[in-house]
Structure formats: structure tokens, C-alpha cells
């Protein structure tokens, strides 16, 4: 079995960070996801938080974690989604790592 190279990842969802605010007390980010097919964001982010060993609580289009100190919410249309991430718990380093891991999940989860 050999290694395979591909120039374009057709399964990837385009997700870009529109806005970010980072203070001593918290991290807030807004992302936009462009998707030709509908994505189940609840499944994507609940799975990611489970892999990150965080207990997630789903409420419609919002998930809270870290006992309510972390929230990820989304507003979906047919072709794009605006995603809001808000964390006021953890160290600055951990907040950045969690945000990067959730962004990676939004981009690459099937």
C-alpha cells in the first residue's frame, strides 16, 4: 500500500474566521462556513467536543460546554452558516487550542 497525494480536498468545507476578540478573560470568534450541501453542525461539534473530553449540552442551534463557560452557536442558511464561538473558561493557550480543534472539525468532519 502506498501513500496517496491529492492537490484538492473535495470533502473539505470552506470555513473562514470573520472576526476574533481575545482578552485575558475570554475568546470570541465568528466564522463563516460555505457548504454546497447541508451540514449537521450539532453532530460535528458534539463529536469534536467528545473527542476533546468536554461534556457538551445541545440546545437547538447552540451547544454549551465547560459547564456553560463555553458556547458554540450557529445560524444556518441553505448554503452558508455563521458560527459563533465564545469561551470564558480555561487558560489562554487552551482556549486557542480548543478553538483551533473546533475549526478543524468544521472544515474536515464528514
Amino acid at each position, binding site marked *: *500500500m*502506498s*501513500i*496517496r*497525494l*491529492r*492537490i*484538492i*480536498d473535495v470533502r*473539505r468545507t470552506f470555513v473562514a474566521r470573520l472576526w476574533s476578540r481575545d482578552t485575558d478573560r475570554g475568546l470570541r470568534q465568528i466564522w463563516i462556513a460555505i457548504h454546497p450541501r447541508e451540514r449537521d453542525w450539532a453532530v460535528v461539534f458534539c463529536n*469534536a467536543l467528545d*473527542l*476533546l*473530553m468536554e461534556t457538551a449540552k445541545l440546545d437547538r442551534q447552540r451547544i454549551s460546554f465547560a459547564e456553560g463557560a463555553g458556547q458554540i452557536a450557529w445560524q444556518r442558511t441553505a448554503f452558508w452558516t455563521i458560527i459563533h464561538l465564545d469561551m470564558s473558561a*480555561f*487558560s489562554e*493557550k*487552551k482556549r486557542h*487550542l*480548543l478553538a483551533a*480543534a473546533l475549526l*478543524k*472539525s468544521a*472544515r*474536515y468532519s*464528514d
Partner: protein
Amino acid sequence: MPKVTESAVVAAPAEKIFQMFVEPQRAVMFVPGLSRINNISPDKRSWDYEFNWLGLVISGHSECTASEAPKKYQFKTLTGNKSTWTYRCEPDGANTKLSLEVEYEVPQQQLARFASETVLQKMNQNTAREIVSHIKTLLEP
């Protein structure tokens, strides 16, 4: 084969750290550039991986070769340039000493095009350092 090692003391029990390794998909959360883990076997001892490196997708297959909870977890990448990854957890009071050793084949054909062996070693050392640092960050409060 050349190898790089990296270690850190993590304020978490070895059992909790070991949980990061036994679920192959979890690696996506702390390995830089790793984008997907697919086709995981029912016993979780083999899987396919995909790295996204500057837009280039590199995919291959891995197999777990040792899983001795909570002390040692080892897997091998079996495609492309073969490598062996070994995580070790040693209790250190209330903490755990986590170490990662990566042994890798030097890709002779690619070396001429992309990097010298020293540069490759530095890249692998940096990756190992990031992985250990990410695990520590995720598991500590």
C-alpha cells in the same frame, strides 16, 4: 532509523492521558496538520489517516502495534515513509511524565527536492513538541 523524542510532565493521571491515544480519531484534535482519521477497524487497531499540508492532502494507513494501558501506546504508519510513534506514561506523584518518541525513515528521493536531513529532523522535533504540548494543554485545567 533516525528518531526524535519529546516529553513533559502533565498534571493528570496516566489513565486519563492514555485515553487520548486509544481512540484513534482523537489524534485529529492534537496532531498538527492531521485532518481526518477514517476506516477505523472495530478493535481500533488500524485506521486510515489524512494530513493536510499547505493544501496538499497526504493519506495513508496506520496500525497500532502496542497498547499497554496506561503505560505504553505505539503505532506505525505503514505507507509512504514508514514511522513508529511511541507514547509512554510514567506516574510521577500526582502527575504523569508523558513522552513521545518518533522513529522515521528518511525519504531519500524527497530530500533532494525539499529539505536536508537536518531540516527534516527539526520539523519532526517541532511536531513532537507541539503534540506533547497540546496533550498537556488539553488535559490540564
